[in-house]
């Protein structure tokens, strides 16, 4: 028998991913140039949307790939926010440098949290993270240095003009998106990504194939904490004010769960679709308050019961056009 083909190569990009990648570059350029063409109201929206995208992507990495369902990510949002306020306000550090330094706080909190909670089974792990978040919130509200329950205000921001602040914010948001979405994409395409995908599908089988599930989960938990904290620091810097009730609000967890479940868990695209849906739904229906939240809750319930893949899962049924392809495709070519 002759060789049926002469040349084989691995293809990763698809036409849809090339379009998506170009769009990402355009969006990033658009975001960074916003202070020169957009109103400050729109910039505020862009900051908010960037934070949602990042927080949801991190939750997707946790729950969708590492099998770590957390309802306590607000702990990392709050500690990063508080660290930023303390560094900038009390220590007089440049706030835009302090944002980066404040990422130490979620990383430091994530290590003992994971080591304590890793012994808990799936659903108990989730409520365990919630307890940690509540404990951190209550501790914060009892520390006088942090102004207890009244919270902190970022007065140092007044030394910058609005234009300067906006430039810094859009750059930070671009960095946040590249770090969280780009980082997830890079991670999932790497060797670690193969292990993560295997773990998503079956942790026990993955372990038997030589994946160090425990270590990988630990790394993902810490990385997600840092990414979530980054978004939290930017969000509360834009708000100029943080209180324990807001920074550690369990609503952050509800929001992540809603975004990722509705968008589609276990896919980068899912979290993005979900964040866009949530952002615009919030703009359109947010004024209805509790009625709107009833619908959000029921929607999450229905998706968990009947359509686990979310909107992205439904879109995928129409045709497989990944924006961020993580699979490898072997193409066999006959060169004769």
């Amino acid at each position, binding site marked *: 028998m002759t060789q049926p083909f002469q040349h084989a190569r691995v293809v990763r990009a698809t036409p849809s991913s090339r379009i998506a990648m170009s769009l990402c570059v355009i969006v990033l350029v658009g975001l960074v140039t916003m202070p020169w063409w957009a109103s400050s109201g729109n910039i505020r929206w862009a900051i908010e949307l960037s934070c949602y995208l990042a927080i949801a992507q991190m939750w997707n990495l946790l*729950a969708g790939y590492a*099998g770590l*369902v957390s*309802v306590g990510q607000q702990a990392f949002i709050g500690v990063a926010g508080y660290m930023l306020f303390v560094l900038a306000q009390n220590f007089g550090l440049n706030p835009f440098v302090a944002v980066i330094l404040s990422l130490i706080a979620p990383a430091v909190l994530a290590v003992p949290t994971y080591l*304590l*909670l890793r*012994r*808990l*089974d*799936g*659903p*108990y792990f*989730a*409520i*365990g993270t*919630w*307890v*940690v978040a*509540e*404990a951190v919130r*209550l*501790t914060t*509200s*009892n520390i006088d240095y942090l102004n*207890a329950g009244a919270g902190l205000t970022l007065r140092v921001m007044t030394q910058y003009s609005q234009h300067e602040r906006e430039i810094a914010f859009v750059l930070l948001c671009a960095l946040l998106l590249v770090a969280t979405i780009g980082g997830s994409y890079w991670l999932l395409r790497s060797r670690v990504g193969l292990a993560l995908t295997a773990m998503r599908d079956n942790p026990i089988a993955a372990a038997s194939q030589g994946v160090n599930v425990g270590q990988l989960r630990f790394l993902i938990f810490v990385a997600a904490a840092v990414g979530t904290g980054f978004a939290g620091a930017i969000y509360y810097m834009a708000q100029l004010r943080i209180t324990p009730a807001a920074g550690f609000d*369990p609503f952050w967890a*509800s929001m992540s*769960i*809603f975004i990722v*479940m509705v968008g589609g*868990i276990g896919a980068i695209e899912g979290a993005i679709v979900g964040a866009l849906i949530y952002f615009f739904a919030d703009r359109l229906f947010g004024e209805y308050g*509790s*009625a709107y*939240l*009833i619908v*959000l*809750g*029921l*929607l*999450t*319930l*229905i*998706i*968990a*019961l009947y359509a*686990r893949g979310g909107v992205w899962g439904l879109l995928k049924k129409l045709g497989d056009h990944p924006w961020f392809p993580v699979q490898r495709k072997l193409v066999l070519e006959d060169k004769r």
Partner: protein
Amino acid sequence: MQWLDAIIQGVLLGGMYAQYALGMALMFGVMRIVNIAHGDVMILLSLIVISLAGVLPLGNIGLIVVIVPIAVLLGWVLQKFILNKVVGADPLPSLIATFGLSIALQNLMLEVWSADTRSLPNSGIASASFEIGGIYLGVLPVLVLMCAVVLTGGLDAVLRYSRFGRGLRAAAADTEAAAMTGVDPKRIYAIATAIAVAILGLAAVFAALRATVSPSDGSAQLIYAFEAVIIGGMGSLWGAFLGAMVLGVAQAIGLRIDPGLGILFGHLVFLAVLATRPEGIMARKK
């Protein structure tokens, strides 16, 4: 004396938490499901009780007689339409589904009952107390604690000695093997959920008598129930009871030190147990 008083009040508070924790321990033990809406269901039942008391001239006993069947019905609906669809090895669907339900329930209650705190009209029992050796004990908290002891003991006996209990333990150990020997897991699940929610119905009346309730209180109750179950040791009813006592005492002592520290102390004791004895204080040695 002050600390002895704190411990006793903590044990009485623990009686309340034990009633929340019992249903959770039962449901998790059987189905490996944590119902995130556990606390919200309790608050819903409390609010229904309060509204019923406004229109029907029932005594407290009458209210219990009315609310427990409602609770059983609610448990059946919960089981039939939600939990049965998400029971499985993967904990994610059940978590997400009940999380969605929790948000929907909380906001539904907010729409119906508004954010006001409410309680059952005081019929005297809520403020009655007696004195033993210089320590004042509320009649109602003592009643709640006694009720919790009877419920735990009764449920434990049912699990140990009845046919249903054997089926339940078999289904918890290995669902498929139990099904082969003639146990119907779906029926077992339905009964377990009905019992768990019925206990919540009783707890709901006590909660409405003892303090105020508002639609957003459910999450805190869920966390207390959960902490009690973990502190005590998973899969043990008396463990959950003891865990509730530990939690209640921790909160009462924290509260005496500083009013802002009560709940935090409970969380810290929970985390300390997790760090030093993750299998829980009542778990059997392996």
